[in-house]
Every structure is written in structure tokens, then in C-alpha cells.
């Protein structure tokens, strides 16, 4: 899970490629956009009420009324998948927002001041990195109870080192470029150097890290919901749907778990491909 290292290098502002975006990145971007749209509008687009049970129509196969069939209580699977996009994407979005904002701030602070502060931040992050995200999430869930709070809190902490390490080493290089010293000599306030110069130059790297991190975070949140410690029934969150459908598999009805699993897989792969594509384009590198 979170232990999968994001294979990324850290050179910003290298030669940028211009011209056409490669088709794979374009497709990945389209898929991501589609899922974000579903997350925003999901409940409006769902053809049926995602929580309406139909005891007479349990585990039905695909039909005109139910394109993907129904689950073990007769709820429309397509509607549940569409309505569940919001819960599935919102939690990792929160994780990435918190860890990226906090991580970038930490990285800039460590790079700017250097010395013992930098060593302390790096050491602290190494310690955090030694604590697997999934286990942290289970611990937090035991304290706060099952729900999305636990995975969001735990994963925001667990993802902090992944973002900070990469941004920090880029920020150190940036900070030692001559133009920063020139700005300091001209008497530019530190805040302005950070906001107007360092941050904009690091932004492409931060964006790439956040995009790739989003895929992993989504996977982790879904896994925690699958374990029963995240989203709670009757929420149509996809990880929870995979778990809900598991008993039906033994009865030869895999559709609920299978479709929810495929949805997770597609969105994770799309975020990953978009991230590597952005990295190639914005950072001029094959990540």
C-alpha cells in the first residue's frame, strides 16, 4: 500500500517539452475528468436511487432497467457506482490536500533555513515513514471509531514524507540558485521570495506528486473501507461495495465486487498515468 515508493526524480524547471500531449496522458486526463465530474454531480446523474432496495429483484443480471444489474438487496449497481464516486474520491482529495499543503510548507521551511531545522524535519519524516499508513489508520479508527475521519487523519500523516522529501530536495536546489541570493541582496521580503519565486517554480513538481499520490491515497482509503473501518453501510463507497459483494461471490454472483473493483482500478491507473504524463511534460522527464 503506502509503502510503494513513488518513483520520481526531483529536477524542476528542466527543459520543458512543447507540442502535443501524448495520447495516453490525454485519455488518462479524460478519465480523471469524467470521474471528478461524477463525484461532483453523481447523485444527479444516477438513474435510480442508489439506496432503494428491491427484494423481488435481488442479484439480477444486466437489463434495460438496470444496466449493470442489482446487488444482494436489489439496489441498482450502476446508480451505486455513480453515486459512490463522491465518497470514494472526496476522502483521498482531503488526504492529498492536507499532506500536499503541509508537506510543501515543511519542505520550503526546511530548505530555506537548512541546518539543524532541516535535519530535524528530515529525521522526523524518516520516523513517520517507518509507520505503515494502513496500521496507523487502524489505530486511529480504534480511537475515533469507524468512519472516514480515521483514514483521512492517518493517511494525511502517512503521505507527508512522500510529498515533503521530493519537494524538499528540489527546494534546496532552487534556494541555492543565484537569483534567490540576488533577491535577498535587493532586500526582497522572505515571504515574497517564497510566494512569488520559489513556490511558482516548485508548483509543477508539487502538482505531479499530488496527482500520483492521489491514486495511491484513493487505493488506501478504499482498502480501509473494505476492511470495514472507513465508509459505513449503506454508503455506496467503492471499497465498501467490494466488501459487500464478497459473500455473493461464493454464490456465483461476483458483479458487485467486480464492478466496484474495476472502477477503483480504472481511476487509480488513470491518476497514475496522468501523473507520469504531467511529469514528462512539466518536468521534462520520464518518471
Amino acid at each position, binding site marked *: *500500500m*503506502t*509503502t*510503494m*515508493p513513488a518513483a520520481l526524480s526531483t529536477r524542476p524547471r528542466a527543459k520543458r517539452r512543447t507540442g502535443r500531449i501524448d495520447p495516453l496522458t490525454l485519455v488518462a486526463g479524460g478519465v480523471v475528468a469524467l470521474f471528478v465530474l461524477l463525484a461532483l454531480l453523481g447523485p444527479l446523474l444516477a438513474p435510480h436511487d442508489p439506496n432503494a432496495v428491491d427484494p423481488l429483484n435481488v442479484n439480477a443480471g444486466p437489463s434495460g432497467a438496470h444496466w449493470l444489474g442489482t446487488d444482494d438487496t436489489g439496489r441498482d449497481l450502476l446508480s451505486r457506482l455513480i453515486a459512490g464516486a463522491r465518497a470514494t474520491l472526496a476522502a483521498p482529495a482531503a488526504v492529498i490536500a492536507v499532506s500536499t499543503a503541509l508537506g510543501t510548507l515543511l519542505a520550503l521551511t526546511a530548505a530555506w533555513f537548512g541546518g539543524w531545522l532541516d535535519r530535524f524535519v*528530515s*529525521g522526523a519524516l*524518516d*520516523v513517520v515513514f*517507518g*509507520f*505503515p*499508513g*494502513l*496500521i*496507523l489508520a*487502524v*489505530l*486511529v*479508527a*480504534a*480511537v*475515533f*471509531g*469507524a468512519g472516514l475521519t480515521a483514514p483521512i487523519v492517518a493517511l494525511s500523516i502517512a503521505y507527508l514524507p512522500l510529498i515533503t522529501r521530493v519537494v524538499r530536495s528540489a527546494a534546496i536546489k532552487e534556494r541555492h540558485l543565484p537569483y534567490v541570493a540576488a533577491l535577498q541582496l535587493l532586500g526582497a521580503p522572505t515571504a515574497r521570495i517564497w510566494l512569488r519565486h520559489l513556490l511558482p517554480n516548485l508548483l509543477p513538481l508539487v502538482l505531479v506528486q499530488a496527482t500520483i499520490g492521489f491514486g495511491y491515497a484513493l*487505493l488506501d482509503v*478504499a*482498502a480501509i473501507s*473494505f*476492511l*470495514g*473501518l472507513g465508509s459505513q453501510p449503506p454508503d455506496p463507497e467503492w*471499497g465498501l461495495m*467490494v*466488501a459487500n*459483494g*464478497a459473500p455473493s*461471490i*461464493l454464490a*456465483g454472483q*461476483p458483479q458487485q*465486487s*467486480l464492478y466496484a*473493483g474495476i472502477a*477503483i*482500478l480504472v481511476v*487509480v*491507473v488513470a491518476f*497514475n498515468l496522468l501523473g507520469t504524463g504531467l511529469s514528462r511534460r512539466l518536468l521534462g522527464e520520464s518518471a
Partner: protein
Amino acid sequence: MSLRFLSVRLGMLVLTVLVSSLAIYGAMFLTPGDPATLLVGGSRNPDPAVLAQIRSDYHLDDPFLAGYWHWLSNFLQGDFGQSLVYRDSVTGLIGDRAGDTVALVAYAAVLVLAGGMLIGTVAALRGGRTEALATTLTAGAMAVPTFVMAVLLIWLFAVRLPWFPVYGSGEGFTDTLAHLTLPAVALALSWIGYVAQVTRTAVRGELRSEHVETARSRGVPERVVIRRHVLHNASGAMFAVSGVGIAGLIATAAVAEQAFGTGGLGALMIEAASKQDMAVVQAVSLIFVIVFVVINTGVDLISAAVDPRIAAQKGAIR
């Protein structure tokens, strides 16, 4: 390997375990209510007399650090406290289930080592279509999350083709092997993909290197070149990535155990967390963190002992 590198890594190991244990112990004080309610299993209405007993047993009324020290020293002596939900000592609960987790992780580790290195090496040596196919398949394996792979395997190899049993962890060696095959495969697959990709890159890199060219041009037989010059030089990277993979297996074993209903420490931790049985969650999560950190540190130290350049590099980066 310099003494400095060794002491820094060991110091880091101790520090990580200490800070983690502090976080694990301290987490229960973040609860909005009385931390003692977490130790009886949070959701029910506890008896005030029982709560008072727990407060004194766990030294909850003492200063925070005194309570922490008491808990940690008990933990280090193998006394993990009592689970009031399971009505058993936590040590007993863990002892009953540790074997299942060790068996599962060991099985998966064998698959990761054998499968990952073999696929990666063959792909790099054969090249061409074999390499392209292996790259695609391993990238695919890395993308499928363990819990999705689990339901997929159950459907394919327990329902459609009834080859493997799915629940429980089995009795005796062959039965255990049969019960643990699907969970171990589900757990191992994404790491097999990861190890295979790193192995392939390492072997590819060596194949293109100058010393291999030189050995070939001097007429050293290809078998010897591959064994002595290519695989030998790539083995450092293969070892390091396998260590990362095995540490990763431990961190995610809980998912496979839960998905397949094989008992184990991970499944115990998740069940205890959903019942808010804090004593169990604290003990099991600290065990997992210690094993995870020890494996990672061990791999780093062995890598550095075999190849001193690694210690120099890591010292420079951190």
C-alpha cells in the same frame, strides 16, 4: 560499512520504535471521552467499578509519561495487558494468531523472491517480446490493489474453478498450504510486479555496462558473463528491493487475512479496532511497526555491508 553508518541506522531504528510506541500509546488520549472506555471496548456502557479498576491497572491517573513507561516496559516483557472484549490476555490472543500471519507472510515472501527475481531476470535476458510482455503484466499486477485481487482470485479459483478452499487457515502442512495459496498470491502479486520491474532494470543496466562488453570481447563464455558479471552485480539491487517488498507484505497482510478469512494478527487488529478494543490494537500495531522497521533497517545494513558505496550514498542524501 562504517561504524558511523551502523550506529546512525541503529539509532534511527530505536528512535522510530520509541516515537511509534509513544504515538500508539498516546493515541488513546485523543478520544473525546475517557481513555479507559477504549480499554473495555468503547461502544458499550461500562460499569464504573470496572472503569476504576482499568484506570489503576493501566496507570491512567498517573502522569502521561509514567503511564507510558509502565505500558512500554510491560510490553517489552511480553505482558500486553487484558482484552475485556475477548476475555483473554492480549498475549494469549496474539500467541494464538501469530503463527497464521508468519505462515502467510513467509509463503508470500517466497512467491515475491522467486517470482519477482525470475520474471525480472528472464525478461531482461530474453529481451524483445518476452520483455515487453513481462513489463506489461508486472505493471498490471502492481496496479491491482490486494483486496480487489482477493475477490478476483476467490471468484476465479474458488468458485468458477473450485481448486482452493477459501476460509480458515487449515490443519497440517498440505492443508495449510492449500488454504494459504490464494491469500499469499493476492498479497504477493503487486510486490512480485515491483520486484520484477526493479530486477529487470538492474539486469538491463548491467548487460549494457562496459565491463560486460569487455568480458564478452575477451571471449568469456556467455554463461559465465551472465552469472559472474551480470547477475552478481545486479544482486544488490535485487536484494534491496526484495527487502522492501517483504516489509510491504507485513504492512498489508491484514488486508489479505480479512479478505480470505484466514485468522492472523492483522485480522485480529482490524476486528479489535472495529470493537474499539484498544489494548489489542496497541499491542498488535506496535508488533507490526517493530517488525516492519527491523526488516527495513536489516536490509539497509546488509546492503551497506555488501556494498560500501550504498552507505556513502545514503549518508550523503540524509
